[in-house]
């Protein structure tokens, strides 16, 4: 842990060298997500709801999903950009270090420009919670549970990111896969799962389990159905998925053949 903090603070200092660049890129990344949400708000203002979910309810789903994926993009930038290690043959240099390759990847770099997106997501959450005007007990439960939901989301996102990165051991390139395994599912998780056709729902509750991070618990917390189990599922699924992705990652490393040079 000490080592992690040291490595992270080093990478933080190097990033802050370019303050202006950092500020502008954070702002523009936040802007993208803001425009995205404003468009959704425009639809829901006009048509009231999407299959029984109003703007603030969708806002909760949206906020959790956005915060989760942007936190992953901040902290796991090297896992996300793992393709580079395969294409440029840099992975060998990680293997000869005394620390595990994954720890090195996780501590090597931070993409602070993505923080803009996280702040944006948190703002949407705050606006939605105020807009929902919940009773005390419900509000209390929601506020307690939100961090758990977000953490489960980050872990699910990281697991998906790691699974995709592992594919690079065989395919070298993973950018195209990420659209399929990360961008599209997290975009879908911005909205309630009940709007999707059956086959899409099956995907989002099995192989790419983004439905669990926000839809399942919010369904229960907003009295839209389900039982207490809905609250236990997100952390459980996150842990199982993390375990599976770590296993796959180690399997990938064992099958890694350096191109040598």
């Amino acid at each position: 842990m000490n080592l992690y903090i040291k490595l992270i603070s080093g990478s933080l200092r190097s990033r802050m060298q370019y303050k202006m660049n950092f500020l502008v890129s954070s702002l523009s990344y936040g802007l993208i997500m803001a425009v995205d949400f404003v468009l959704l708000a425009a639809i829901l203002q006009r048509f009231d709801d999407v299959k029984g979910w109003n703007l603030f309810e969708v806002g909760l789903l949206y906020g959790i999903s956005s915060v989760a994926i942007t936190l992953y993009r901040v902290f796991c930038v090297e896992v996300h950009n793992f393709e580079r290690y395969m294409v440029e043959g840099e992975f060998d240099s990680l293997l000869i270090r005394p620390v595990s390759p994954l720890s090195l990847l996780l501590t090597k770099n931070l993409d602070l420009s993505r923080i803009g997106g996280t702040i944006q997501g948190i703002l949407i959450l705050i606006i939605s919670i105020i807009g929902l005007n919940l009773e005390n007990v419900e509000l209390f439960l929601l506020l307690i549970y939100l961090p758990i939901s977000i953490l489960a989301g980050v872990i699910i996102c990281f697991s998906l990111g790691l699974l995709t990165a592992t594919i690079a051991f065989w395919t070298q390139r993973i950018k195209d896969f990420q659209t399929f395994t990360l961008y599209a599912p997290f975009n879908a998780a911005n909205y309630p799962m009940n709007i999707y056709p059956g086959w899409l729902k099956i995907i989002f509750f099995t192989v790419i389990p983004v439905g669990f991070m926000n839809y399942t618990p919010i369904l229960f917390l907003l009295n839209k159905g389900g039982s207490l189990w809905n609250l236990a599922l997100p952390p459980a699924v996150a842990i199982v998925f993390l375990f599976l992705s770590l296993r796959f990652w180690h399997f990938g490393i064992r099958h890694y053949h350096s191109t040598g040079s």
Partner: protein
Amino acid sequence: MRNMQYKVAHLINNAASAIFGFVFIAIWVGVLQGKENESPYSALDMTYYIAAVQCILWLSGFLTAGLNIQNGVRNGAISLELVRPTNFFLYVTSQEAGRLLYNFFFRSIPIGLVFALTVGFYVPQHVPSYLFLCISIFLAIIISINLHYLVGISACWTTEIDWAHFVNFTLLIGLGGQLVPIDLLPAPLSFITPYLPFAGAIYYPVMIFLEKVSSEVLFIQLFWAVLLTLMNLWLTEKARHKLEIQGG
């Protein structure tokens, strides 16, 4: 084997693009269910709309960031490229046009087929629509290539274009009507957006395809295509002069 990897990656990307489309269609069907009388678009209209948008995005939405001009600025190759006897603007834009031609055959058409086989795909009913559609798509491509060129050439002054690309892309997607047809946007936006270049890149070609606007919108597209091209030619000249002053 390497070729095979690219093919698989390509297929996966097309599938992801189709999934994005299914997600957006699902949102609209969910939103419009039981409320179709309040909307100028039916659920089926929106299905066709989103399907067409997903296809056109590969021609005028997902272009190379800054058309890679910024790389030349960073490694200095731009100085050679700019003094070549060929026109730099034409050289860069025709390279991108080649990539878009590839996208048309290997991304737009397969994605369109996926929608045609699953949720349905609109086919223009009137013969002139096909001619207007070709012109509109052509103008949309010119507008978008120019917007991306503008971002790229700005690297001559700023060296960093990431944020400019982000902003350009967001406006293109957001105000171009990728998720929400721009006539459904709230009041101040719905007045302005029809006259912005972003609508010319996505919204108008799609609406012409769906036969929901008159062909007069081609003039708005033409206006932006010409204006942006002239502006970029002028900026390229400026960039060349800047280079000469720096010397080297």
